[in-house]
């Protein structure tokens, strides 16, 4: 089978109603989506507009799936695939689109441009053409479980060090970071301590019945649209949730991990899980509303703004909880404009932060975010996703924004009053 046939076969495997309608005749080429894309706004390059990026894949799909394009391809712009198209797809789907979905909500026809480009991502992965580092990080997550005997020792040593930090900050030698023990809450962090220590402080302060997962929440399999591997990464946590008899699985502040565990995984596995899936943002808000934690907002005295991660806000539907948490733990809150469902992507999403070969492009793609941050006059930016955290930190340094950046739980933990 030649490359062309293989690509068409891989495209066919992924062809569904959503891709089909968006890819054939729904787009009227009205151009409304163009200005909604932070990447187009940053570069002004027409090739970076949502419609132009989708068109690169759409033309090939149309050739096969649209009757008019089958008969008169020149009329509709449809074309047969050539090998050079794949290089253009890499640019369009991986480098020049963060799958933020802002164009979708600004399209009068509801065209799912990111679905078309995510389909291209999947095809490129099947063809061995997706960014190597994203595949390596996916495989490393799977290796973590396969080599758990060796890994667990490293992990427990790391947690023992962090537990000491928690005890010192709380001035309480009984504060704990239980690991993979039976508990009501299974908390799934990322690899970094900044997703472990603040959460441990909050769970201990709220006297929660919780345990820390042996695994990290992030799932690079979704960035390369390799669903079989992404499922394997999720399965590790599902097995653990069953083992510890968790009633709630709490996902740390990671946009795509929340989307995967809350929305995608039940579809992939074709069932609802025996436990509820919540974001740490929701849990922190619950603890505040229920009076389980005491806060001193004066401990966060600088003006602070919040960046809605696309996967938490626009795609996840969580808008008010982080704002409630930040406002309860800060003296001065400044809203970004636009925000919530219309917020602009930071430019670092969907794997961009890990693709070092595109660092310059990524920092350019954050231009709109830099302007948004400047307009708030905030001295601190709080967000709820590690990709956004990395990106906004780098944007701050490169553009001399003179800001600090943290996730929401670090911000809240800083205001905690321990009794």
């Amino acid at each position: 089978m030649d490359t062309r046939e293989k690509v068409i076969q891989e495209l066919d495997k992924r062809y569904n109603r959503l891709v089909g309608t968006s890819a054939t005749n729904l787009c009227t080429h009205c151009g409304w989506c163009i200005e909604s894309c932070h990447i187009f706004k940053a570069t002004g390059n027409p090739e970076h507009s949502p419609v132009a990026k989708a068109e690169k894949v759409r033309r090939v799909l149309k050739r096969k799936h649209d009757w008019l394009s089958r008969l008169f391809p020149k009329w509709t712009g449809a074309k047969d695939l050539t090998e050079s198209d794949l290089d253009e797809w890499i640019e369009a789907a991986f480098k020049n689109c963060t799958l933020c979905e802002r164009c979708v909500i600004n399209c009068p026809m509801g065209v799912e441009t990111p679905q078309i480009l995510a389909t291209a991502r999947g095809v490129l992965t099947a063809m061995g053409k997706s960014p190597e580092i994203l595949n390596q990080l996916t495989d490393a997550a799977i290796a973590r479980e396969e080599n758990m005997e060796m890994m667990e020792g490293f992990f427990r040593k790391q947690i023992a060090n962090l537990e000491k930090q928690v005890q010192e900050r709380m001035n309480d030698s009984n504060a704990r970071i239980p690991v993979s023990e039976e508990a009501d809450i299974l908390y799934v962090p990322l690899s970094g301590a900044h997703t472990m220590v603040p959460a441990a402080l909050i769970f201990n302060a709220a006297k929660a019945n919780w345990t820390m997962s042996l695994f990290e929440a992030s799932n690079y399999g979704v960035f390369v649209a390799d669903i079989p591997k992404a499922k394997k990464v999720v399965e590790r946590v599902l097995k653990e949730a069953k083992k510890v008899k968790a009633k709630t699985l709490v996902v740390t502040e990671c946009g795509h991990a929340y989307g995967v565990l809350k929305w995608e995984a039940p579809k992939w596995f074709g069932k609802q899980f025996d436990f509820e899936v919540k974001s740490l943002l929701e849990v922190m808000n619950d603890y505040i509303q229920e009076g389980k934690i005491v806060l001193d907002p004066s401990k966060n005295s600088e003006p602070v703004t919040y960046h809605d991660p696309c996967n938490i806000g626009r795609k996840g539907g969580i808008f008010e909880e982080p704002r409630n948490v930040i406002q309860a733990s800060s003296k001065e809150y400044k809203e970004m404009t636009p925000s919530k469902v219309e917020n602009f992507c930071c430019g670092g999403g969907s794997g961009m932060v890990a693709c070092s070969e595109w660092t310059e492009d990524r920092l350019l793609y954050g231009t709109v975010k830099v302007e948004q941050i400047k307009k708030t006059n905030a001295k601190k930016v709080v967000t709820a996703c590690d990709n956004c955290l990395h990106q906004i930190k780098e944007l701050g340094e490169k553009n001399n924004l003179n800001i600090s950046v943290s996730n929401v739980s670090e911000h809240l933990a800083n205001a905690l009053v321990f009794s």
Partner: protein
Amino acid sequence: MSTINIEKVLDLKGLLCPIPVVKISNAIKEIEPGNVIEATATDPGVMMDIPAWCASTGNELDSMEEAGGVITFRVKRLK
């Protein structure tokens, strides 16, 4: 006793995961097979991420030690 050829030394202190993995993944391509990268990091996440990355890419974790919040590790390029 086999000698260790440290061809590259990386300072990854202050970087959060997965960036240390990204840097190691790039640096390993720049050294000869059989040679070693020695790196220091502060994010405890590397204690899980680097061994897992080595296991999945067929490289070898020669050593990993933690002292005073600084993690020092050596990765050998095998192929």
